[in-house]
C-alpha cells in the first residue's frame, strides 16, 4: 500500500506542478508581453528614448523570465526571444524602420512561449 500512496502523492504533486507551471509561465509571458507592447507603443509614438528605456527594462527582466520559463519550456523557444532582445536596442538607436517589426516579432515569440502551456495543444 505504501507504493500506492506514494504514487498517488507523486501524481498529486505532478498535477499541482503542471497547473502551477501553466500559471507561472502565463503570468511571466503576459508581463513580458506587456513590456514588449510598451516598446512597440513608444516606437509608434516616435519616442526613441522611451523605447530604449523599455528595452533596457526588458533586458533586465530577461533573466527572471528565462529562469521561470526555462524550467518548463524548450530552450529553442526562448533563444529567439533573446536574439530579438539583443538586436532591438541598436536598431532603435540607429533609427532603423525595421525596429518596429523587430518589436512585433518579439511579442509574437513571447506569445509562442505562452501558447506552449495551452491545454488544447495536447490534441
Amino acid at each position, binding site marked *: 500500500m505504501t507504493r500506492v500512496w*506514494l*504514487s498517488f502523492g*507523486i*501524481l498529486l504533486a*505532478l498535477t499541482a506542478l503542471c497547473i502551477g507551471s501553466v500559471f507561472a509561465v502565463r503570468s511571466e509571458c503576459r508581463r513580458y508581453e506587456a513590456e514588449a507592447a510598451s516598446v512597440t507603443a513608444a516606437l509608434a509614438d516616435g519616442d526613441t528614448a522611451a523605447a530604449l528605456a523599455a528595452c533596457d527594462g526588458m533586458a533586465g527582466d530577461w533573466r527572471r523570465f528565462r529562469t521561470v520559463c526555462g*524550467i*518548463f519550456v*524548450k530552450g*529553442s523557444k526562448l533563444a529567439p526571444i533573446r536574439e530579438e532582445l539583443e538586436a532591438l536596442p541598436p536598431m532603435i538607436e540607429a533609427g532603423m524602420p525595421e525596429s518596429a517589426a523587430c518589436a512585433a516579432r518579439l511579442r509574437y515569440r513571447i506569445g509562442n512561449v505562452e501558447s506552449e502551456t495551452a491545454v488544447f495543444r495536447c490534441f
Partner: protein
Amino acid sequence: MTIIFIRTLILYALVIFSVRLMGKRQLGELQPSELVITILISNIATLSLEDTDIPLLQGILPVLALVCFEVLSSWISLRFPAFRKLVSGTPQIIIRNGEIDQDKLRELRFSPDDLMASLRTAGIFSVEEVQFACAETNGTVSVLRKAGKQPAEKADVCAALQDADPPRTIIADGILREQALQEEGLDRAWAEDVLRRAGLHSDEVFLMTADASRQFTIIPKEVQA
C-alpha cells in the same frame, strides 16, 4: 558535457527509483501494460538525456507519471477483476485433455511452431506428453504433463521428508550479516564459536552459509600469492 553528465545522473537515479517504485512484480515476466511502460520510460529517458534543449522536468514528469499510473493501475487490477481482465486479458487454455484447441491457437495467432517452442522451453519435446497447457497473460505457456509423464517426486516414494528453508549467507567476503543470523534464529556468538573451531576469523571467510538447524558450510578466502 557537464550538463549531460548531471542530467544522466539525475535520470539514472530517477529510472532506478521508478523501477523500484513499480516493485518486484515488474522485474519478472511483463504484463502487456508493464511492457508498454518499460518501453516508454526507456524512450523518454533517452530523449531527455540526448537533447539538452528539452527541460529536464519534461523528462522527469512523464517518467514519474507513467510509473505512478502503472502502480495505481496494478492496484486497481488487484481490487477489481473486471479491470484486470480489461488491462491484462485472461489466461487461455490451448491444450485440454491432451487435445490442442486449434481455434484458440488461431485466435491467439499462435503457430504450431510457436506452440512447440513454448513446450520445448518447458522441457517437453513431444506434444503427446501434454495433458493441459495454458497461454498466460504475460505470453508464457504453462504446461501440465500427463500423469504418466510427470517426473517422480520424493513424496511418490514415501520418503521421510521434513520441510526446511534453504541455508542463508551468513558471511560474504568477510562481512558478517547480522540480519541473516537473526532470521535463522542464530546469533553472532554462535558464528564466532563455529569460526573459532574452524581456526578462522570472519575476515578470512569467503562464504559461510547456515540454516536454522545449525548446519553450516564455510569456504575460506584463497590466500593470494
